[in-house]
């Protein structure tokens, strides 16, 4: 599996061949608080880089989930829809959101590595 990359909208992404797995970062869950609702894109639908691809709601508010790359949705994680608290428990592991068949490899270039993201997250929350 490839190195984990991060977006400015606080999504993480890993690649296996041309299939990307996408979720939201631990930092994002800490900002959101207790997550109580998740909505995912439909399997088979196409999503565009930086477009909305789902919703999460905490006890406080609703937030859009964006996709850092374009592609076709090939799988979604029903477990987090059934029990959204899993997103708070393991955001960067078992609580992934959806898998995409990637369209354009170059879209990965603008994303941050872990070190860059940690710095970005620290700055954007202070």
């Amino acid at each position: 599996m490839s190195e984990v990359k991060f977006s400015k909208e606080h999504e993480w992404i890993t690649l296996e061949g041309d299939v990307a797995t996408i979720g939201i970062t631990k930092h994002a869950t800490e900002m959101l608080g207790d997550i109580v609702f998740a909505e995912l894109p439909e399997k088979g639908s196409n999503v565009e880089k930086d477009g909305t691809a789902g919703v999460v709601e905490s006890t406080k508010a609703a937030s859009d989930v964006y996709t850092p790359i374009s592609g076709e949705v090939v799988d979604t994680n029903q477990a987090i829809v059934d029990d959204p608290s899993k997103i708070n428990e393991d955001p960067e592991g078992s609580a992934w959101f959806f898998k995409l068949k990637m369209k354009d490899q170059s879209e990965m270039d603008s994303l941050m590595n872990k070190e860059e993201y940690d710095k970005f997250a620290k700055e954007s929350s202070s």
Partner: protein
Amino acid sequence: MEIKKTSLNNLHKDNQAKFVEFAGYEMPIQYSKGIIEEHKFTRLHSGIFDVSHMGQLFIYGDESLTEELEKIFPLDLKNLKQNSSKYSFLMNEDAGIYDDLIITKIEDGYLIILNAACKDKDFEILSNLLGIKFKMNLDNNRSLIAIQGPKSVEILNSIIDGVDQLHFMSGNWFDFNNQKLFVTRSGYTGEDGFEVSISNDIAEKFTQNLIEKGAQLIGLGARDTLRLEAGLCLYGHELDINKTPIEANLKWAISKSRLSNGGFIGSEKIMNQIQDGANQVRVGIKPEGRLIAREKTKIFSDTDSQIGEITSGTFGPSVNGPIAMGYVDKEFSKVDTKILLEVRGKKYPANICALPFYKKNYVKGVN
């Protein structure tokens, strides 16, 4: 204008509070454990709420004050016992609600607890109505601390002996640190609990004592989920100047004797609405599934015509599902009526349901 802070502000910071601005005050929305844990802790144990931003209005006077207040509030104040409290509202001539409040008869007058965002305007309205005859003091030197949940009586009684003798919706003066506290058995969470009016200089020490005895600080986030589960109204959401107590389904808070004779501000409108019915009424709403429908969500009938709007909506941690309150046209207000909620451009099924969502645990007593 500079943001105001309560006397517990440093204590909130020491407990890793996340702050929000609320009615001009810097208030804790949650602490490190988060809203759901704080909510559940209150239901099972004992939560401490800093509600010092709320107004504590003391009005001093004798029977003539009671007579004047009866021209304003829809209450039978003449027969209200000393140290007993009532939930009520300040209204305009059209029975629109300026504020909802708790009024307690004290030895030398009344204590009225007002919402933070409304208190200055309330003071102005009441000053105009009462004139200069009675001394009024919107007391900024006192904090207000609520302690709510089943263990609260044991914890508070270990610090202030005798509070366990208070009945629901009544209060009394007690001593703490050689100072007078006014304690009422009341609250806004659906749990047994108390509200303590205490001098600012000892509020932090008092709260530290509560924490040492096992109570925990709870933020405004959980306060909102707790009151919504209990089916209680929040001013600015369920209640405002365009809503009447009849529309808000709060007829129970109007004293029966006042319903027949009127004579309070807004009484004509209220009597008309009781006779003819209000066009829209407040209801409880449960979305199907896990969908959360927040304030301003449009409500539709199953034939797709708009019939109302959500006023509060969230996830209820004790109900373990989404809950909401809102106003719908009267013919759709029956329990179990199927409705649709428009969220992010799509319509989702929901049902009108009875309030409260969560059964109250108040200690019963004389009224």
